């Protein structure tokens, strides 16, 4: 009915105002079409992804897929939103201290400005920061200093930036907060905590790091040379001068340490990651503004909130409403049936787990190389949850360990898969954009040629890990 559109537009948003699907169309089809259109348009990258996702979410409500606005809001995972926003606030304040530039310069000088040594050190810094903060922010702050250093060394920046892209995604895989797919998994799967990522996914990350570094050495590392004069210029850098605000640095590091501790001990106490991150963000804002005048406080807080990546936040909000609409309409049941169908003929739940883990790992990896891994994972989580229910109804009950093996496969596949192409993860695009502005563009096909095989290699290592640890 056209009335549904009018009712929704005119404020039929409360629980009591049920809206029928527009023209009496099947919500399954409406939601499916909105989903495909939205994801398709996002993939073209012609329009801002947050705007497209919000329009898709709005269409889900206006076309009557949801009975009312409240039902749509139930689909938004506020834990993910809170965690992302809180961490973005903390990083926005911390980055003002110059600590990221300090770390990059300090590490370059530690290896006497030798190019290969710098590449290794910057890779380590990128991986560790990506695990502890988020990989997008990490590359946003490390890539500019990297270009500065390579410029002073008079060597091509590509191998360095290439390594940083790869290791930001590899490092981010290690923790719940490191990469958006992990935030989604950690937030939406109740039995998975910050610590589970540390004990289940993180252990394989150092091996993947080393095994990815070796081909980079063979391809470029052994040939990297710089003149003594150029290396002397980098050695002449004064790392300490990069720190612009020591008191704020101390406050930031203290809050960051508390937040990381909070992630580790919070879950048993009933505190979700969003609570920890938001409290940490608010506390750091308080500490950052203690000695300022009221006007300065207001301006500074306003500025900090302005640095939150709202495009990402609203992208998530839109995606959640779209995926939940798909779920409500029963479309994910069909997708889940396909997943379950893949396990047909399996002898027992162990074989089901093996088949699903390997399939999820590889499909996620290849899909994440082609499309943004955030919408992919946002759709996969409810699909897999539905598949687990369908499997148990068919007598193939997966226990928690078996379910977790599949979730870890999704995490490793989606995070590592992001390395497959320049559009595979947000961090890749940020480095590419910056490199282009600085006059050293990264070509799509060149990156694909180097990165895709390395991505497959890392996923192969992950496959062996998942198999040996969970499937035998």
């Amino acid at each position, binding site marked *: 009915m056209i009335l549904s559109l009018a009712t929704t537009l005119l404020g039929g948003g409360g629980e009591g105002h049920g809206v029928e699907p527009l023209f009496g169309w099947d919500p399954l089809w409406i939601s499916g079409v909105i989903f495909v259109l939205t994801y398709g348009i996002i993939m073209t990258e012609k329009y801002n992804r947050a705007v497209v996702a919000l329009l898709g979410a709005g269409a889900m409500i206006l076309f009557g897929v949801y009975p009312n606005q409240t039902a749509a809001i139930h689909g938004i995972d506020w834990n993910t939103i809170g965690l992302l926003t809180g961490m973005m606030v903390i990083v926005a304040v911390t*980055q003002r201290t*110059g600590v990221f*530039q*300090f770390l990059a*310069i300090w590490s370059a000088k530690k290896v006497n400005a030798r190019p290969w040594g710098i590449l290794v050190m910057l890779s380590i810094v990128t991986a560790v920061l990506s695990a502890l903060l988020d990989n997008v922010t990490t590359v*946003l*702050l490390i890539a*500019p*200093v*990297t*270009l*500065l250093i390579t*410029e*002073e060394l008079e060597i091509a920046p590509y191998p360095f930036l290439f390594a940083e892209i790869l290791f930001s995604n590899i490092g981010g895989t290690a923790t719940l907060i490191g990469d958006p797919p992990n935030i989604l998994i950690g937030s939406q799967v109740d039995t998975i905590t910050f610590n589970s990522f540390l004990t289940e996914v993180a252990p394989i990350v150092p091996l993947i790091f080393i095994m990815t570094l070796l081909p980079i050495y063979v391809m470029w590392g052994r040939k990297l040379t710089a003149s003594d004069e150029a290396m002397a*210029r980098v050695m*002449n*850098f*004064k*790392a*300490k*001068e*990069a720190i*612009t605000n020591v008191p704020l640095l101390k406050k930031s590091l203290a809050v960051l340490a508390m937040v990381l501790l909070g992630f580790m001990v919070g879950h048993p106490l009933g505190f979700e990651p969003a609570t920890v991150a938001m409290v940490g963000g608010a506390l750091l804002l308080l500490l950052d503004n203690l000695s300022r005048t009221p006007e300065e406080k207001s301006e500074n807080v306003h500025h900090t909130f302005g640095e939150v990546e709202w495009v990402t936040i609203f992208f998530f909000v839109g995606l959640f409403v779209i995926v939940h609409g798909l779920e409500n309409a029963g479309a994910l049941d069909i997708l889940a049936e396909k997943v379950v169908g893949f396990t047909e003929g399996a002898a027992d739940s162990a074989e089901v787990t093996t088949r699903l883990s390997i399939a999820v790992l590889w499909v996620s990896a290849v899909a994440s190389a082609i499309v943004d891994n955030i919408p992919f994972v946002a759709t996969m989580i409810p699909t897999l949850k539905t598949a687990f229910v369908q499997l148990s109804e068919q007598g193939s009950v997966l226990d928690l360990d078996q379910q977790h093996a599949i979730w870890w496969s999704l995490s490793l596949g989606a995070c590592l898969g992001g390395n497959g192409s320049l559009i595979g993860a947000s961090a890749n695009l940020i480095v590419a954009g*910056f490199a282009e*502005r*600085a*006059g050293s563009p990264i070509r799509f096909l060149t990156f694909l040629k180097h990165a895709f095989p390395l991505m497959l290699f890392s996923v192969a290592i992950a496959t062996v890990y998942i198999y040996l640890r969970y499937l035998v």
Partner: protein
Amino acid sequence: MTCSEIMTSNPVTVRATEPVAAATAVLRDNHFRSVPVVDEDGKMVGQFGIQALLALILPKAAVADDHLSNLRYLNDDLADLQRRLVEEHDQPVGKYAEEVGPVLHPDTAISQVVVHLTESRNNLPVVDEASGKLIGMVSYWDIIGRILGDKK
């Protein structure tokens, strides 16, 4: 009153293919803030000014990103700045020509010219709309001078 009545016709220009060193000399010798850059047909390419020149003596990475506003750790001396500039000396200036404000046309109203001058804080080119060719420049003094009674 329109732009064509106050502009300076036949302004000093540099060709896009001329080296940075030549354009720098034009800026220095004339004490210009910027100089218009044109192609071989006289079409406007952009302007090369003090801001672009200063950017050339910094590392490219610093200019490309506002996250590198603090460069104290570079520990540079004059020789370092000179080295960066010398590296760019032979590059064609067209590579660094940029749009520093809106393009004016001969029939742009004088009040609108003042608005654009205020916003861009730079001399502005006057371009023939049909051919895209540079036909003049308008500076602050073109307007202020006329108001104060200076003869054109």
